[in-house]
Structure formats: C-alpha cells, structure tokens
C-alpha cells in the first residue's frame, strides 16, 4: 500500500540529496576528525565546511557559534542546564506552558533543585500575552526559554519581539529558543532578524536529515556551561567524537531547504489550506486549533467534536495515511495534549484532535486521499458516539447536558 505521510512535525523522510552527500563519510572518509594524519584532516575540513554552511544558512553567523549535538533534546538540555549552571547567582526561569517536554521537563528538574519557574499561559488561539511576559521578568531571571513555533499546533511565537524586550530589560538574561519546528521552514537570521536570541536549538530529522544530529547556536559571549563532558571536541563545549556523516547530512539538508524554501513553503501552504478548507466543508462540528494565530504553513491541527483521535488515526492507518494526535512524545500518557489543554480547547474537542503536518514531498494526491477517506472515518466514529445525532449530522441537543452529568 502506498504510504501517505502527513506527520512531518514528528520526523521527515531523509532527502535523497542528503543521503548522497553523507554516503562517502561512512566508507571512504570515515576518519576521526581529531586525528592528525592527512586523511583525517580531509574529514576535518568537511566538518568545518558543514559548520560554515549551517552558520551561513542562519544569517551568516560565526561558525564558532554553531555547536553540534545528538538531537534537539540534547541541545535544549545543554542550553537550559548550561545557562543555569553558568549563572548560579540567579534562580528564575521563564518558559511557556506549551513547550516541548525537552524544555518543560528540564525546567521542572531545575524547579526541583530550587529554581523558580514561571510558565506563561496562552490564550484560546495559542498566543502569549505580552503583558504577562513583561510582568514575569524579574531581577532574578536568568533565562527565558520560549519555542519558536509549537510542534502540535504550528502557532508561531514572536521571539524577535520577546527576545528584544528581554535584552532591553536586562542584557544579562539569557534568551533561548527551541526552533526545532521552524529551522528549514521559516527564514532564521540570527544576525539581523533575531540579534537578541542567545541560544537556539534544532535537529536534523525535522528538515529531511537523519535522526541523531542536532544543533545548538550559542551566541559568542553567552554564559553557558557544557553538558556533555569529556574530550576537547567542539572547543570543549560538547565532548564526544563528531558524528561526521550526520553533520554533513544536516548541513546539506539545511542548504537544500534554503535553496527551495520560498517555493516549497508556498506550495506546502497551498496544500495545507486546501486540506483545511475541504475538511471544514465536508465535515460538521470541526474546529481548527490555533486558527487565530500566525501558524507554520505546513501544520493543521484540527479537532472533530465528540469523537476520539486514536480511533481516527487507527482507521487512517488502514488507508496508509500517517498523521498524529497530539505530540508523539506525549503518547503513552492518558492525558490529552498539554498544549490543547493550555489553549482551553473544549473537552468535546480536545480528545478528537488530529495533526496533519506536510513537507515538500507531499502532493495534491495526498490531500485527495485524505479528503476521500476522512469524512467516512469521522462518520464511522460519530455513529458510535453517544453525543451525536446522525440524522441531523449534528451534536445531540442534550449532548452538553449528558456530558455535564457524567463529569459532575
């Protein structure tokens, strides 16, 4: 069966160009770049070139400001723990309620060790309140860590504005952003556009490079202790032999995304908008989560009232369609998505959310396929739903009363 892959915020297909670029570094230039002999020097030069390429793609920053890690989670851990350890005189951190667990759990760990953490709330569209943010800044604040775009809803936060307010209030506060969902999708210019961002994380496998490689941008002069200790690699900021083939891969992938970004993103947005519009047309009682906020062009988080997401995913999977319901990282928990809860998505809809996330490899045929099967998928479940009136194709008049009874 042909796979219709619409879960690109979870991971992406590795681009064939990336595979080609990586291949020689497994069998031919496999040397440890720290070794002294001539062949290793060539491997080292390739590493240097990859670092430069990434620095250029991020607004021509200094290649020394690029640190290679194992994944975005490691980048986030390094950034947050490293900033906290380098600045022990301050104990307050600001983040949001909708961060990825790779940020939230690290903040909670610091909280257990005596730090105070402010979790900023979001409104029903998933937007932050600037006033609340300003109020949260204190003389004790050491770090602000706010994601660039949300992985579940695609809602984009104005980190340019937030980082500027932070640094103008107190230049000693470190500003970190988890940009895992935006690098490769939005223009990221750390020199001109985001000059106040000190630390920025992302990973390769969200932009058509393989899993197992990440990047942390550390602006020169930022106080941040290393997280991985050991050898002198990465100027002593991240020990461990450099994962050369994967680093070559992420550099090539980022370069590809830059070359094609404008065209790709316009096409991806067209497909996403078509999918969104058509689902709303074809299916009753639907809401798009994050609709009122600036969103990534590739993400559609859509809730179908009175039914449950897992049942939809299971049926979709029978048609070879891959999508998700909430973050893959939070699956396994019985709680619905912390992001949708923070957005106060009504309880009739919170369990019925499906996330479609597209990439440059999707086509109109993929959208057609979803539109062909999805109305029936929803209808199948609504037929079973005690809150749905199938004759009227609407919620039963007493649906809310029924629900309130069961909840009280």
């Amino acid at each position, binding site marked *: 069966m042909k796979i219709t892959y619409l879960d690109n915020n979870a991971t992406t297909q590795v681009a064939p160009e990336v595979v080609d670029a990586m291949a020689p570094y497994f069998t031919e230039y496999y040397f440890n*770049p*720290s*070794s*002294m*002999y001539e062949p*290793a*020097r060539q*491997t*080292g*030069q390739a*590493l*240097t070139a990859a670092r430069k390429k990434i620095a250029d793609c991020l607004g021509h*920053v*200094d290649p*020394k*400001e690029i640190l290679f890690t194992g994944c975005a989670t490691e980048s986030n851990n390094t950034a947050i723990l490293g900033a906290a350890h*380098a*600045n022990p005189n301050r104990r307050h951190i600001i983040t949001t309620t909708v961060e990825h667990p790779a940020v939230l759990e690290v903040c909670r760990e610091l909280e257990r060790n005596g730090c105070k953490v402010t979790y900023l709330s979001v409104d029903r569209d998933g937007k932050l309140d*600037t*006033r609340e943010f*300003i*109020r949260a*800044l*204190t*003389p004790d604040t050491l770090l602000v860590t706010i994601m660039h775009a949300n992985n579940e809803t695609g809602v984009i936060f104005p980190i340019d*504005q937030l980082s*500027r*307010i932070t*640094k*103008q*209030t*107190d*230049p*000693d506060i470190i500003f970190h952003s988890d940009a895992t969902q935006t690098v490769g999708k939005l223009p990221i210019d*750390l*020199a001109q556009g985001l*000059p*106040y961002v*000190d630390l920025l994380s992302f990973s390769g496998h969200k932009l058509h490079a393989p899993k197992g490689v990440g990047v942390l941008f550390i*602006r*020169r*002069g*930022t*106080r941040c*202790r290393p997280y991985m200790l050991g050898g002198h690699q990465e*100027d*002593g900021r991240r020990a461990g032999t*450099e994962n050369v083939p994967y680093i070559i891969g992420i550099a090539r992938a980022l370069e590809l995304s830059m070359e094609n970004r404008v065209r790709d993103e316009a096409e991806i947005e067209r497909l996403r908008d078509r999918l969104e519009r058509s689902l709303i047309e074809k299916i009753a009682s639907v809401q798009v989560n994050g609709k009122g906020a600036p969103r990534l062009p590739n993400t559609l988080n859509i809730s179908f009232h009175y039914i449950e997401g897992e049942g939809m995913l299971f049926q979709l999977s029978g048609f070879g369609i891959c999508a998700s319901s909430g973050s893959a990282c939070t699956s396994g928990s019985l709680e619905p998505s912390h992001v949708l809860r923070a957005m106060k998505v009504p309880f009739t809809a919170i369990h019925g959310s499906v996330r479609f996330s597209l990439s440059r490899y999707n086509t109109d045929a993929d959208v057609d396929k979803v539109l062909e099967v999805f109305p029936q998928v929803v209808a199948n479940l609504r037929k079973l739903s005690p809150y749905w009136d199938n004759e009227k194709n609407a919620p039963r008049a007493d649906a809310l009363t029924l629900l309130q009874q069961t909840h009280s």
Partner: protein
Amino acid sequence: MGWEYSEKTKQLFMDAVHGKPGTHLGEIENPDGMGEHGSIACGDAMRFTFRVERHPSDPTKDVITEAKYLTFGCTSAIASSEALCEIIEKGNYTPVTALQIQNKDIVDYLDGLPEQKIHCSVMGAEALSAAVFNWAQRRGVDLKKLGIDMHDEETEEGRMVCKCFSLSEPYIKRKIRELNLRTIPQITNAIKAGGGCTSCHHVPGGLQDLLDQVWGGQAAAAGSGPIQLPVLQGEPASPEFSPYQFAKKVERVVNEYIRPALRADGGDVEIMDIKGSLVYCSLRGACSNCAGASQTLKLMIERNLKDQVDERIRVIEV
C-alpha cells in the same frame, strides 16, 4: 579536528627537525641576550638566545647577528621559534627595535596559524622580550629611559587567575589589552589561560570578569555578540515616590504631553507596564507602522519622561 597548518609552517618544522643548514636549533654559548618563556608543565617552553655585534660606544646601536632557540613543543611551537629567528636575522634589528616584533608578525611569517595555536607565536614574542631585557641588564641599558614598559615579572605577580597555567591577573589583563582579546576562547588560544580545567571562566574574578574590567562590559559587543545595554532592574527609580505614585506621574506626563502630540499625527501610545524605572510602551494607530517608531519612543517619550519625572527612566518598545 586536525590542525590546519600552512605549507610554510610544515616546511619550517621539517627543516628544523632535519637540522637543515640555515636553521636555528640550538643555544648560543655566552649569549648577549637570553630569555625563556613557558614551562614543560604547560606543554611548551622556549629558550631564546641571541648574539649582537656590539657598537663601540652606544649599546642601543648593537645589531643582532645571530639567534637560536631550544623549544619544547608542538609543530607550530617549533615553526614559530624558527620563524622568529629568521625574522630577526633578516631584519638587521637592534635589540630595542626587535621589541617591535609581535606575535602577529610571527603568525604572518608562517602564513597564518590555527587559532588554537596562536599561543605558540605569543611564546616566541614573550621569549624575545625576555631576552632583550636580559641584554639590557648585561649592557647597562635603561629601557625605561627609552620609554619602554618593562612589565617585569615582579609587578605581574598578582592574584593567580588560571591555576592550570600559573597565569596572574596583571599578566592576563595586559595580554587582553595588547592582543585585543575579546572572548574567553581568544584568551585561551593566545595565552592558554582558561584552557585547562576551565573553572576560571565565569567565577568571580575569573576571565569573563577580567574581560569586562578591561573592556568595560563591551567585550562581547564586538562581532555578533549579544547587544549590551545598561542593566537596570528592581526598585522604583525614585525613592521619594511609591511605585503607585511613580506610575501615576508617568501616566500624567504621557496623557498631558505625549498623547496629544501623537494623536495629532493619528497615532497613540499605550503603557504596557512599569518595572522599576523601565517603562514598557506600545505604539498604536499610525505610529505602530511608522518607520520612525523607535525614534519617537526614544526621542519624544523617553526624553519627556526623563525631563519631567526622573532622569533614570528608560522606555522599552513592546
């Protein structure tokens, strides 16, 4: 990664280790000047000796005719030593004019050195200075009279900052200035300080503090470092007002003086918050799309508030 040595560096190193004629490995017996720098514990050490052709009456007109070195160190340390001797022998230097030779000249002579290896060239320049001071003592030349700062070891015996490489605060500060070092990695590359256990990087009195002291907190502003702005936090600006009274006063000035002027142009301003003496403002209406918005904030709103409420007020655009 492997070091990126220039052809020149590799060549000088190979010539030196093969003892090719014209190289300078060795030590001059009864030299006219002898200087040392580094120690084996630190990974590289150099002994530099030179001979001069003595001027019959004026020792400052002595000319260096021969230079030799003994160096314990890596490829680039040996190449730097070789380069130093070649520069000196070719240049017809007097000991005093030789002091003008900087580590940068050695780097240039080698067609560049990897950043992590800059300290090798610094070692050469330091050993040369030490040898010149030694010559001055032997020949009875008072360098201070010639306007040359001796920075003798005694005045640099201050608090130990980098324990791994035994480097004192006065020495590190002097080098930060002389070599225009702006970041901790640059310090480490040039003089090794902070390159061992790294515990001196961000502790009070550590390398970052020394950088801040020398450059007045502007160190990181060079290049793409974070943009530095004056720190201001905490208590309300004016102790004579409570935060409530202070806010009322700001609001009154905004309402009476600033808002009418902005409204005349179809704009407006909203005070989002006041923290200490920071006033967070958001421009509305025509102002919010105006290219000169930040100018408006700074020149008009901030100036007015400074004049009429408190000189310490700073306006931040939201």
